[in-house]
Protein backbone atom coordinates (compact mmCIF):
# COMPACT_ATOMS: atom_id res chain seq x y z
CA UNK A 1 0.00 0.00 0.00
CA UNK A 2 1.53 3.26 -1.19
CA UNK A 3 0.64 6.77 -0.05
CA UNK A 4 1.35 9.89 -2.04
CA UNK A 5 0.79 13.46 -0.97
CA UNK A 6 -0.09 15.68 -3.91
CA UNK A 7 -1.35 19.12 -4.80
CA UNK A 8 -4.09 19.25 -7.42
CA UNK A 9 -4.71 22.57 -9.16
CA UNK A 10 -7.99 22.85 -11.08
CA UNK A 11 -8.55 25.03 -14.15
CA UNK A 12 -11.80 27.05 -14.32
CA UNK A 13 -13.71 24.46 -16.37
CA UNK A 14 -13.05 21.72 -13.80
CA UNK A 15 -13.97 23.70 -10.68
CA UNK A 16 -17.59 22.48 -10.82
CA UNK A 17 -16.75 18.91 -11.83
CA UNK A 18 -16.70 16.00 -9.31
CA UNK A 19 -13.14 15.06 -10.26
CA UNK A 20 -12.12 13.48 -6.96
CA UNK A 21 -15.35 11.43 -6.78
CA UNK A 22 -14.86 10.18 -10.33
CA UNK A 23 -11.24 9.28 -9.65
CA UNK A 24 -12.29 7.20 -6.63
CA UNK A 25 -14.98 5.46 -8.70
CA UNK A 26 -12.69 4.63 -11.62
CA UNK A 27 -9.57 3.60 -9.73
CA UNK A 28 -8.91 1.62 -6.57
CA UNK A 29 -7.48 4.53 -4.65
CA UNK A 30 -8.50 6.27 -1.45
CA UNK A 31 -8.41 10.06 -1.51
CA UNK A 32 -8.00 11.98 1.73
CA UNK A 33 -8.30 15.75 1.36
CA UNK A 34 -6.39 17.69 4.01
CA UNK A 35 -6.65 21.26 2.77
CA UNK A 36 -8.38 22.95 -0.14
CA UNK A 37 -9.43 26.30 -1.49
CA UNK A 38 -12.00 26.45 -4.23
CA UNK A 39 -13.48 29.64 -5.63
CA UNK A 40 -15.69 30.40 -8.60
CA UNK A 41 -12.96 30.17 -11.23
CA UNK A 42 -10.05 28.35 -9.62
CA UNK A 43 -9.21 25.82 -6.99
CA UNK A 44 -6.50 23.75 -5.37
CA UNK A 45 -6.52 20.76 -3.12
CA UNK A 46 -3.86 19.11 -0.99
CA UNK A 47 -4.61 15.44 -0.59
CA UNK A 48 -3.22 12.03 0.13
CA UNK A 49 -3.86 9.23 -2.32
CA UNK A 50 -3.42 5.65 -1.09
CA UNK A 51 -3.52 2.41 -3.02
CA UNK A 52 -1.31 0.18 -5.13
CA UNK A 53 1.63 2.01 -6.65
CA UNK A 54 0.57 1.38 -10.25
CA UNK A 55 -3.05 2.23 -9.50
CA UNK A 56 -2.03 5.58 -7.97
CA UNK A 57 0.00 6.36 -11.08
CA UNK A 58 -2.95 5.47 -13.30
CA UNK A 59 -5.28 7.64 -11.23
CA UNK A 60 -2.87 10.59 -11.38
CA UNK A 61 -2.40 10.14 -15.10
CA UNK A 62 -6.18 10.16 -15.54
CA UNK A 63 -6.48 13.36 -13.46
CA UNK A 64 -3.83 15.02 -15.62
CA UNK A 65 -5.72 13.99 -18.75
CA UNK A 66 -8.85 15.64 -17.35
CA UNK A 67 -6.84 18.89 -17.10
CA UNK A 68 -5.78 18.85 -13.45
CA UNK A 69 -2.26 20.03 -12.73
CA UNK A 70 -0.62 17.58 -10.34
CA UNK A 71 2.42 18.58 -8.28
CA UNK A 72 4.29 17.37 -5.22
CA UNK A 73 3.05 19.25 -2.14
CA UNK A 74 6.52 20.75 -1.77
CA UNK A 75 6.00 22.84 -4.91
CA UNK A 76 8.92 23.04 -7.35
CA UNK A 77 11.99 21.47 -5.82
CA UNK A 78 14.40 21.86 -8.72
CA UNK A 79 16.12 25.14 -7.85
CA UNK A 80 18.19 27.35 -10.11
Amino acid sequence: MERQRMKFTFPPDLVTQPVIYNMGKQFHVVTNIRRANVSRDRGWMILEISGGEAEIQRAIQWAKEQGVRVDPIEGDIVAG
Partner: protein
Amino acid sequence: MRYVNGLECRECGQAYPAEPIHVCEMCFGPLEVAYDYDAIGNAISRETIARGPHSLWRYKPLLPIEGDRIVDSQAGFTPLVRAHNLGRALGLRNLFVKNDTVNPTFSFKDRPVSIASTKAVEFGFDTLACASTGNLAGSVAAHAAKAGLRACIFIPADLEPSKVVAAQAYGPTIVAVDGNYDDVNRVCSEIADRHRWAFVNINLRPYYSEGSKTLAYEVAEQLGWRAPDHVVVPIASGSLFTKVWKGFRELAKLGLVPGVTTRMTGAQALGCSPVVTAFDAQTLTVEPVKPKTIAKSLAIGNPADGYYSLRIMKESGGVACAVDDGEVVEGIKLLARTEGIFAETAGGVVVGVLKKLAASGQIDPDELVVAYVTGNGLKTQEALAGALIEPIYARPSLRAIEEALALEAPATASVA
Protein backbone atom coordinates in the same frame (compact mmCIF):
# COMPACT_ATOMS: atom_id res chain seq x y z
CA MET B 1 21.97 26.90 25.41
CA ARG B 2 18.95 25.79 23.38
CA TYR B 3 17.10 28.43 21.43
CA VAL B 4 14.90 26.17 19.30
CA ASN B 5 11.57 25.04 20.69
CA GLY B 6 10.91 22.73 17.76
CA LEU B 7 9.00 22.90 14.50
CA GLU B 8 5.54 24.32 13.98
CA CYS B 9 3.06 24.04 11.12
CA ARG B 10 2.64 27.34 9.33
CA GLU B 11 -0.98 26.47 8.56
CA CYS B 12 -2.47 24.77 11.63
CA GLY B 13 0.16 25.50 14.30
CA GLN B 14 0.71 21.84 15.20
CA ALA B 15 4.02 21.46 17.09
CA TYR B 16 6.71 18.91 16.25
CA PRO B 17 10.18 18.13 17.64
CA ALA B 18 13.14 19.55 15.72
CA GLU B 19 13.68 16.61 13.38
CA PRO B 20 14.41 16.27 9.66
CA ILE B 21 10.75 16.62 8.65
CA HIS B 22 9.10 19.32 6.59
CA VAL B 23 5.39 18.59 6.30
CA CYS B 24 2.67 18.67 8.93
CA GLU B 25 1.10 15.23 9.30
CA MET B 26 -2.27 16.81 10.10
CA CYS B 27 -2.80 19.25 7.23
CA PHE B 28 0.29 18.73 5.03
CA GLY B 29 1.26 22.36 5.61
CA PRO B 30 4.91 23.45 5.65
CA LEU B 31 6.84 23.33 8.92
CA GLU B 32 8.72 26.30 10.32
CA VAL B 33 11.33 26.54 13.09
CA ALA B 34 9.90 27.92 16.36
CA TYR B 35 12.34 29.71 18.67
CA ASP B 36 12.50 30.65 22.33
CA TYR B 37 12.91 34.39 21.76
CA ASP B 38 13.24 35.14 25.47
CA ALA B 39 16.32 32.92 25.66
CA ILE B 40 17.71 34.43 22.46
CA GLY B 41 17.08 37.94 23.81
CA ASN B 42 19.13 37.11 26.90
CA ALA B 43 21.96 35.71 24.80
CA ILE B 44 22.50 38.36 22.15
CA SER B 45 22.86 42.09 21.84
CA ARG B 46 24.24 44.45 19.22
CA GLU B 47 27.58 44.20 21.06
CA THR B 48 27.79 40.38 21.13
CA ILE B 49 26.91 40.28 17.46
CA ALA B 50 29.57 42.88 16.64
CA ARG B 51 32.18 40.70 18.37
CA GLY B 52 31.17 37.66 16.29
CA PRO B 53 32.85 36.27 13.17
CA HIS B 54 32.65 38.14 9.86
CA SER B 55 30.22 35.61 8.44
CA LEU B 56 26.58 34.64 8.87
CA TRP B 57 27.60 32.73 12.01
CA ARG B 58 27.68 36.00 13.95
CA TYR B 59 23.90 35.49 14.23
CA LYS B 60 24.15 31.86 15.41
CA PRO B 61 21.62 32.18 18.29
CA LEU B 62 19.04 33.24 15.67
CA LEU B 63 19.71 30.16 13.56
CA PRO B 64 18.35 26.65 14.23
CA ILE B 65 21.71 25.14 15.21
CA GLU B 66 21.89 23.11 18.40
CA GLY B 67 25.39 21.64 18.38
CA ASP B 68 28.83 23.21 18.35
CA ARG B 69 30.02 21.76 15.06
CA ILE B 70 29.20 24.06 12.19
CA VAL B 71 29.96 23.59 8.51
CA ASP B 72 31.68 26.90 7.99
CA SER B 73 32.30 28.10 4.45
CA GLN B 74 32.59 31.69 5.70
CA ALA B 75 29.40 32.55 3.86
CA GLY B 76 27.68 35.85 4.49
CA PHE B 77 28.55 39.26 5.88
CA THR B 78 28.77 40.47 2.31
CA PRO B 79 29.06 44.17 1.41
CA LEU B 80 26.13 46.58 1.59
CA VAL B 81 27.06 49.11 -1.05
CA ARG B 82 25.82 52.69 -1.01
CA ALA B 83 24.80 52.87 -4.67
CA HIS B 84 25.23 56.57 -5.48
CA ASN B 85 25.75 56.03 -9.21
CA LEU B 86 22.88 53.62 -9.75
CA GLY B 87 20.71 55.80 -7.53
CA ARG B 88 21.48 58.83 -9.67
CA ALA B 89 20.62 56.88 -12.82
CA LEU B 90 17.25 55.84 -11.34
CA GLY B 91 16.40 59.00 -9.43
CA LEU B 92 16.74 57.34 -6.02
CA ARG B 93 18.67 59.32 -3.42
CA ASN B 94 19.02 56.65 -0.76
CA LEU B 95 19.76 53.42 -2.56
CA PHE B 96 21.85 50.49 -1.32
CA VAL B 97 22.80 47.23 -3.00
CA LYS B 98 23.31 44.10 -0.90
CA ASN B 99 26.04 42.46 -2.89
CA ASP B 100 25.66 38.74 -2.30
CA THR B 101 27.57 37.84 -5.46
CA VAL B 102 30.73 37.43 -3.38
CA ASN B 103 29.77 34.37 -1.33
CA PRO B 104 32.05 31.28 -1.46
CA THR B 105 30.15 29.72 -4.38
CA PHE B 106 29.03 33.10 -5.69
CA SER B 107 25.39 33.16 -4.70
CA PHE B 108 23.20 33.65 -1.64
CA LYS B 109 22.48 29.90 -1.64
CA ASP B 110 25.57 29.49 0.55
CA ARG B 111 23.51 30.96 3.39
CA PRO B 112 20.70 28.35 3.51
CA VAL B 113 23.09 25.56 2.56
CA SER B 114 25.42 26.48 5.46
CA ILE B 115 22.52 25.82 7.80
CA ALA B 116 21.26 22.71 5.95
CA SER B 117 24.71 21.08 5.83
CA THR B 118 25.29 21.83 9.51
CA LYS B 119 21.93 20.25 10.36
CA ALA B 120 22.71 17.26 8.12
CA VAL B 121 25.81 16.63 10.23
CA GLU B 122 23.84 17.19 13.45
CA PHE B 123 21.16 14.69 12.39
CA GLY B 124 23.79 12.13 11.40
CA PHE B 125 23.08 12.02 7.64
CA ASP B 126 25.86 10.83 5.35
CA THR B 127 24.48 12.23 2.09
CA LEU B 128 23.63 15.83 1.21
CA ALA B 129 21.32 16.08 -1.81
CA CYS B 130 19.38 18.53 -3.93
CA ALA B 131 17.71 18.94 -7.29
CA SER B 132 19.13 21.91 -9.10
CA THR B 133 20.05 23.45 -12.41
CA GLY B 134 22.61 25.91 -11.07
CA ASN B 135 23.39 27.85 -7.93
CA LEU B 136 22.04 25.35 -5.42
CA ALA B 137 23.97 22.46 -6.99
CA GLY B 138 27.31 24.25 -6.61
CA SER B 139 26.63 25.31 -3.06
CA VAL B 140 25.47 21.85 -1.94
CA ALA B 141 28.47 20.16 -3.57
CA ALA B 142 30.90 22.62 -1.96
CA HIS B 143 29.41 22.36 1.52
CA ALA B 144 29.27 18.56 1.33
CA ALA B 145 32.96 18.57 0.43
CA LYS B 146 33.75 20.79 3.41
CA ALA B 147 31.61 18.68 5.76
CA GLY B 148 32.93 15.34 4.52
CA LEU B 149 29.46 14.28 3.35
CA ARG B 150 28.59 12.48 0.13
CA ALA B 151 26.84 14.85 -2.29
CA CYS B 152 24.16 13.73 -4.71
CA ILE B 153 22.84 16.29 -7.18
CA PHE B 154 19.85 15.64 -9.46
CA ILE B 155 19.58 17.51 -12.76
CA PRO B 156 17.37 17.23 -15.83
CA ALA B 157 19.28 15.19 -18.46
CA ASP B 158 19.02 17.92 -21.10
CA LEU B 159 20.78 20.55 -18.98
CA GLU B 160 23.66 22.26 -20.81
CA PRO B 161 27.05 20.86 -19.66
CA SER B 162 28.38 24.34 -18.81
CA LYS B 163 25.72 24.61 -16.12
CA VAL B 164 26.99 21.61 -14.17
CA VAL B 165 30.75 22.22 -14.25
CA ALA B 166 30.60 24.59 -11.29
CA ALA B 167 29.13 21.77 -9.22
CA GLN B 168 31.21 18.94 -10.72
CA ALA B 169 34.41 20.60 -9.53
CA TYR B 170 33.59 19.65 -5.92
CA GLY B 171 33.25 15.98 -6.81
CA PRO B 172 29.57 15.18 -6.17
CA THR B 173 27.59 12.32 -7.69
CA ILE B 174 25.46 13.90 -10.37
CA VAL B 175 22.36 12.07 -11.54
CA ALA B 176 21.02 13.30 -14.88
CA VAL B 177 17.38 12.23 -14.78
CA ASP B 178 15.94 11.16 -18.12
CA GLY B 179 12.79 13.24 -18.06
CA ASN B 180 11.44 16.74 -18.11
CA TYR B 181 11.50 19.25 -15.29
CA ASP B 182 8.27 17.96 -13.72
CA ASP B 183 9.62 14.40 -13.71
CA VAL B 184 12.79 15.47 -11.87
CA ASN B 185 10.70 17.43 -9.43
CA ARG B 186 8.39 14.53 -8.65
CA VAL B 187 11.04 11.86 -8.44
CA CYS B 188 13.19 13.90 -6.01
CA SER B 189 10.20 14.42 -3.77
CA GLU B 190 9.68 10.63 -3.78
CA ILE B 191 13.37 9.86 -3.10
CA ALA B 192 13.34 12.25 -0.14
CA ASP B 193 10.27 10.44 1.19
CA ARG B 194 11.83 6.99 1.01
CA HIS B 195 15.58 7.34 1.59
CA ARG B 196 17.42 8.75 4.55
CA TRP B 197 19.23 11.48 2.68
CA ALA B 198 19.50 15.13 3.61
CA PHE B 199 17.68 16.85 0.75
CA VAL B 200 18.43 20.46 1.58
CA ASN B 201 15.24 21.95 0.17
CA ILE B 202 12.91 19.05 0.97
CA ASN B 203 13.29 17.27 4.32
CA LEU B 204 15.73 19.90 5.67
CA ARG B 205 13.74 22.78 4.23
CA PRO B 206 12.57 24.24 7.58
CA TYR B 207 16.23 24.65 8.63
CA TYR B 208 17.68 25.41 5.19
CA SER B 209 15.36 28.31 4.55
CA GLU B 210 16.25 29.95 7.88
CA GLY B 211 19.71 30.72 6.51
CA SER B 212 18.20 33.38 4.27
CA LYS B 213 17.15 35.42 7.32
CA THR B 214 20.78 36.48 7.65
CA LEU B 215 20.25 38.69 4.57
CA ALA B 216 17.92 40.79 6.74
CA TYR B 217 20.14 40.74 9.83
CA GLU B 218 23.19 41.90 7.92
CA VAL B 219 21.41 44.72 6.13
CA ALA B 220 19.96 46.01 9.41
CA GLU B 221 23.33 45.84 11.15
CA GLN B 222 25.17 47.43 8.22
CA LEU B 223 22.65 50.29 8.21
CA GLY B 224 23.48 50.95 11.87
CA TRP B 225 20.70 48.77 13.27
CA ARG B 226 17.66 49.89 11.39
CA ALA B 227 15.37 48.19 8.89
CA PRO B 228 15.19 49.76 5.41
CA ASP B 229 12.09 51.64 4.23
CA HIS B 230 11.77 49.42 1.17
CA VAL B 231 13.49 46.29 -0.13
CA VAL B 232 13.41 44.67 -3.55
CA VAL B 233 13.92 40.91 -3.33
CA PRO B 234 13.93 38.41 -6.22
CA ILE B 235 11.25 35.71 -6.01
CA ALA B 236 11.77 32.12 -7.17
CA SER B 237 10.08 29.82 -4.61
CA GLY B 238 9.40 32.86 -2.42
CA SER B 239 11.42 31.38 0.45
CA LEU B 240 14.05 34.14 0.42
CA PHE B 241 11.33 36.77 0.34
CA THR B 242 9.51 35.38 3.38
CA LYS B 243 12.73 34.90 5.32
CA VAL B 244 13.99 38.46 4.76
CA TRP B 245 10.71 39.64 6.25
CA LYS B 246 10.96 37.17 9.13
CA GLY B 247 14.54 38.35 9.78
CA PHE B 248 13.58 42.02 10.10
CA ARG B 249 10.62 41.17 12.33
CA GLU B 250 12.74 39.04 14.61
CA LEU B 251 15.20 41.90 15.08
CA ALA B 252 12.32 44.17 16.07
CA LYS B 253 10.92 41.55 18.44
CA LEU B 254 14.33 41.33 20.13
CA GLY B 255 14.68 45.12 20.33
CA LEU B 256 17.73 45.13 18.05
CA VAL B 257 15.99 47.54 15.64
CA PRO B 258 13.41 50.10 16.75
CA GLY B 259 10.61 48.78 14.51
CA VAL B 260 9.90 47.50 11.04
CA THR B 261 7.91 49.46 8.48
CA THR B 262 9.77 47.95 5.54
CA ARG B 263 7.80 47.65 2.33
CA MET B 264 8.54 44.23 0.86
CA THR B 265 8.61 44.24 -2.93
CA GLY B 266 9.08 41.06 -4.98
CA ALA B 267 10.80 40.90 -8.36
CA GLN B 268 10.21 38.25 -11.03
CA ALA B 269 11.06 37.73 -14.68
CA LEU B 270 8.01 38.12 -16.93
CA GLY B 271 8.57 34.64 -18.38
CA CYS B 272 8.05 33.12 -14.93
CA SER B 273 5.96 35.49 -12.88
CA PRO B 274 3.16 33.54 -11.18
CA VAL B 275 3.43 35.65 -8.01
CA VAL B 276 3.23 38.93 -9.94
CA THR B 277 0.22 37.63 -11.89
CA ALA B 278 -1.56 36.74 -8.62
CA PHE B 279 -0.63 40.11 -7.10
CA ASP B 280 -2.01 41.97 -10.11
CA ALA B 281 -5.20 39.89 -9.96
CA GLN B 282 -5.47 40.71 -6.24
CA THR B 283 -5.66 37.07 -5.27
CA LEU B 284 -3.55 34.95 -2.92
CA THR B 285 -3.94 31.90 -5.18
CA VAL B 286 -0.85 31.34 -7.30
CA GLU B 287 -1.50 29.60 -10.62
CA PRO B 288 1.51 27.45 -11.62
CA VAL B 289 3.19 28.38 -14.93
CA LYS B 290 5.73 26.84 -17.29
CA PRO B 291 8.85 29.02 -16.99
CA LYS B 292 10.33 30.62 -20.10
CA THR B 293 12.97 33.16 -19.21
CA ILE B 294 16.73 33.71 -19.24
CA ALA B 295 16.55 34.20 -15.46
CA LYS B 296 16.93 30.47 -14.80
CA SER B 297 17.71 30.88 -11.11
CA LEU B 298 14.22 32.36 -10.66
CA ALA B 299 12.46 29.86 -12.95
CA ILE B 300 10.17 28.23 -10.39
CA GLY B 301 6.75 27.86 -11.99
CA ASN B 302 5.03 26.50 -8.89
CA PRO B 303 6.49 28.49 -5.99
CA ALA B 304 5.95 26.83 -2.60
CA ASP B 305 6.04 30.16 -0.77
CA GLY B 306 4.16 32.20 -3.36
CA TYR B 307 1.07 32.45 -1.19
CA TYR B 308 3.05 33.51 1.88
CA SER B 309 5.00 36.07 -0.18
CA LEU B 310 1.75 37.62 -1.41
CA ARG B 311 0.49 37.90 2.15
CA ILE B 312 3.67 39.71 3.19
CA MET B 313 3.41 42.14 0.28
CA LYS B 314 -0.12 42.96 1.32
CA GLU B 315 0.79 43.32 5.00
CA SER B 316 3.91 45.43 4.37
CA GLY B 317 2.58 47.66 1.58
CA GLY B 318 5.01 46.29 -0.98
CA VAL B 319 4.25 45.30 -4.56
CA ALA B 320 5.16 42.58 -7.04
CA CYS B 321 6.66 43.54 -10.37
CA ALA B 322 8.06 41.70 -13.39
CA VAL B 323 10.42 42.69 -16.19
CA ASP B 324 11.03 41.04 -19.56
CA ASP B 325 14.28 39.39 -20.60
CA GLY B 326 15.46 42.50 -22.45
CA GLU B 327 15.02 44.55 -19.30
CA VAL B 328 16.88 41.85 -17.34
CA VAL B 329 19.92 42.24 -19.62
CA GLU B 330 19.70 46.03 -19.37
CA GLY B 331 19.51 45.68 -15.58
CA ILE B 332 22.68 43.57 -15.47
CA LYS B 333 24.50 46.11 -17.63
CA LEU B 334 23.25 49.09 -15.65
CA LEU B 335 24.39 47.64 -12.34
CA ALA B 336 27.79 46.67 -13.75
CA ARG B 337 28.32 50.06 -15.38
CA THR B 338 27.24 52.18 -12.45
CA GLU B 339 28.43 50.19 -9.43
CA GLY B 340 30.99 47.76 -10.79
CA ILE B 341 28.93 44.77 -9.67
CA PHE B 342 28.42 42.00 -12.20
CA ALA B 343 25.25 40.13 -11.27
CA GLU B 344 23.62 37.06 -12.72
CA THR B 345 20.20 37.32 -14.34
CA ALA B 346 18.33 37.43 -11.01
CA GLY B 347 20.25 40.64 -10.21
CA GLY B 348 19.18 42.00 -13.60
CA VAL B 349 15.58 41.25 -12.65
CA VAL B 350 15.95 43.19 -9.38
CA VAL B 351 17.59 46.21 -11.03
CA GLY B 352 15.04 46.13 -13.85
CA VAL B 353 12.19 46.13 -11.35
CA LEU B 354 13.85 48.87 -9.33
CA LYS B 355 14.07 51.00 -12.46
CA LYS B 356 10.46 50.36 -13.40
CA LEU B 357 9.12 51.16 -9.92
CA ALA B 358 11.29 54.27 -9.56
CA ALA B 359 10.06 55.54 -12.92
CA SER B 360 6.42 54.91 -12.02
CA GLY B 361 6.76 56.58 -8.62
CA GLN B 362 6.06 53.39 -6.67
CA ILE B 363 9.41 53.88 -4.95
CA ASP B 364 9.78 57.27 -3.33
CA PRO B 365 13.05 59.04 -4.32
CA ASP B 366 13.96 59.57 -0.65
CA GLU B 367 13.10 56.11 0.68
CA LEU B 368 15.99 54.06 2.03
CA VAL B 369 15.86 51.24 -0.50
CA VAL B 370 17.89 48.04 -0.46
CA ALA B 371 18.13 45.96 -3.63
CA TYR B 372 19.14 42.34 -3.04
CA VAL B 373 21.59 41.10 -5.67
CA THR B 374 21.90 37.40 -5.02
CA GLY B 375 24.25 35.81 -7.56
CA ASN B 376 27.38 36.45 -9.60
CA GLY B 377 27.31 37.38 -13.28
CA LEU B 378 30.03 34.88 -14.17
CA LYS B 379 27.36 32.21 -13.76
CA THR B 380 25.09 33.44 -16.55
CA GLN B 381 27.46 34.99 -19.07
CA GLU B 382 25.50 33.56 -22.01
CA ALA B 383 22.63 35.91 -21.11
CA LEU B 384 24.73 38.83 -22.33
CA ALA B 385 25.62 37.30 -25.71
CA GLY B 386 25.35 40.00 -28.36
CA ALA B 387 24.38 42.67 -25.82
CA LEU B 388 27.86 44.00 -25.01
CA ILE B 389 30.32 46.33 -26.71
CA GLU B 390 32.60 44.24 -28.92
CA PRO B 391 36.38 44.54 -28.49
CA ILE B 392 38.28 46.70 -30.97
CA TYR B 393 40.74 44.55 -32.90
CA ALA B 394 44.09 46.14 -33.81
CA ARG B 395 47.55 45.22 -35.02
CA PRO B 396 50.33 45.43 -32.37
CA SER B 397 51.65 48.81 -33.35
CA LEU B 398 51.30 52.19 -31.69
CA ARG B 399 49.98 53.81 -34.84
CA ALA B 400 47.39 51.07 -35.43
CA ILE B 401 46.10 51.42 -31.89
CA GLU B 402 46.00 55.21 -32.08
CA GLU B 403 44.04 54.89 -35.30
CA ALA B 404 41.69 52.29 -33.89
CA LEU B 405 40.95 54.41 -30.83
CA ALA B 406 40.98 57.67 -32.82
CA LEU B 407 43.72 59.02 -30.55
CA GLU B 408 45.65 62.04 -31.65
CA ALA B 409 49.41 62.00 -31.04
CA PRO B 410 50.34 64.46 -28.23
CA ALA B 411 51.82 67.71 -29.59
CA THR B 412 54.98 67.52 -27.42
CA ALA B 413 55.78 63.84 -27.61
CA SER B 414 59.17 63.10 -26.16
CA VAL B 415 61.34 60.04 -26.42
CA ALA B 416 62.77 58.74 -23.14
